């Protein structure tokens, strides 16, 4: 079953069209939303989180229409915004407990069990009594994920969850998200193609409010097949100097080009061209 069905969705802020006839569908598993800054990722995530409404087009979340049945959707939703805005004087436990109350977990014992469960799941059990202001950026991010997991939501929306995480934290985060995605729908808005490659079963690439690509990460990688090569000089549509002193080029490869295996990032860059290089990368 498709948990999220987006059909011809338009959203404007004044004259600026953040989403311009966007359509895609997704179901259980981890789906990555890739795109440069201003592509519409955050607007889309906010719509899916029922923060924003669509100007036109239709949206179905968990089989329901968010414009008419917002509350039942919210009861089955976990959301981590780009800037969660924690109450910094709360301890980790107090904050997650507070969110649990707002998620209508009213029985004290059950709620505390659930709070302890999600805190343990994100690996913060040892610091659950610590104030949020004393935590590192990565730990705060995990607090955000913990609150999103309360009540076993069927749809989890994470906006730039790896922003500011160091490589070790990112690794832990990937492990966590892939476990979460085993039995529910997780949508992950990100800049990071590595996260998509490591985590996602599906990927949607947004460009200027439209869907530029929808498929698996492998299919995105294959977009650049035969179009990535190394050369001593800059020669492709997009190119950059590697550590070995050669240029990695993407675009229409010349006949004698030394082709190399493309990555998801190559596919993404090829799809978006200058938009990805100039703004997103």
């Amino acid at each position: 079953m498709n948990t999220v069905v987006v059909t011809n969705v338009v959203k404007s802020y004044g004259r600026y069209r953040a989403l311009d006839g966007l359509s895609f569908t997704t179901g259980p598993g981890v789906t990555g939303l890739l795109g440069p800054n201003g592509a519409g990722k955050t607007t889309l995530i906010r719509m899916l989180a029922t923060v924003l409404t669509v100007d036109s087009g239709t949206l179905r979340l968990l089989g329901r229409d968010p414009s008419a049945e917002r509350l039942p959707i919210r009861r089955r939703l976990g959301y981590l915004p780009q800037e969660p805005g924690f109450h910094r004087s709360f301890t980790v436990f107090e904050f997650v407990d507070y969110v649990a109350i707002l998620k209508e977990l009213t029985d004290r014992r059950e709620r505390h069990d659930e709070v302890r469960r999600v805190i343990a799941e994100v690996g913060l059990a040892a610091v659950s009594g610590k104030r949020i202001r004393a935590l590192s950026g990565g730990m705060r991010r995990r607090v955000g994920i913990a609150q999103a997991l309360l009540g076993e939501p069927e749809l989890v929306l994470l906006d730039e969850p790896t922003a500011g995480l160091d490589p070790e934290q990112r690794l832990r985060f990937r492990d966590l998200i892939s476990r979460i995605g085993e039995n529910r729908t997780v949508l992950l808005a990100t800049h990071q193609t590595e996260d998509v490659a490591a985590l996602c079963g599906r990927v949607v690439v947004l460009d200027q409010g439209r869907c530029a690509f929808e498929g698996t990460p492998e299919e995105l990688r294959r977009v650049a097949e035969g179009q990535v090569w190394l050369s001593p000089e800059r020669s492709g549509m997009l190119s950059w100097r590697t550590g070995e002193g050669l240029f990695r080029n993407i675009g229409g490869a010349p006949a004698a080009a030394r082709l190399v295996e493309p990555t998801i990032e190559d596919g993404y860059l090829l799809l978006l061209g200058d938009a990805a290089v100039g703004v997103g990368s």
Partner: protein
Amino acid sequence: MIVELLESHEDHEDLEDKVSALPVLALTEARRLLRHPLTLLGFALFALSVVTEVGDYWGPRPAFSLITNGMVLWLGVLVFFAAELVASASRRAGGDELLGVLPTSRTRRTAASCLAALGPFLVACLVQAMLCAGYAVWEVPLERPPTIFELASGPLCVLGAGVLGVASARWLPWRGSSMLVMVALILYNNIGDEATGRHLLGFYAELPIWGQWPYRAAKGFHPGNTDWHAVYLLALCLGAGALAMLRDSPRRWFWLGAGALTLVLAVVAGWAQLP
């Protein structure tokens, strides 16, 4: 911007959210308010003023004032700021987007914050009762025996301060706005003086000069009615609650009506209390 968008989406569907979450949330908010450093400071300052008064004993009139309106000054002002800070914490932290998509609506959160003001009120009632018992045990001479309504004035002002703090947080979401509200309250408090008798319209009213044996009666002063003063304060508390709820609730007309009723009650009681 997101807050405005979330607010603009408040609709009647929110009336369906679970009412059962409200008492739990109100208790949590009450704990937050009671544990706020400003509230604790307010109680500490009041306790200090009691110790000082009992220790030095300045006379029957200050002792009467302390038990009837001491809380307004020491506790009420600080509870107002504490309630405003607690109610605006998520906005100031930038957490409105996260909390706004949770099943418990902003309306319920505002209601819970208003109910949470009962926390300091109940503690103030307890403190008031303990102080009365202390006065009785130590046989502290008073201007005259206070009435139950006069004793209620202090805790009622604490309740009003808490609810008004929530209303201020909801209606005036700008830095420093609570300070402006406090200045307005102080100006309103000084609207009248003892000579005109409008002094009771304020919150920090010198109640010893009213009542059965007013020391000013010999000078031709006609006391007002402090029983009505308590009703007046209660009406203002309810009005502040209606004002806070009006900001977020989809039932605008209901809260407008409730606000109008409390306004009528405040005007009637405010008039009835005057000499």
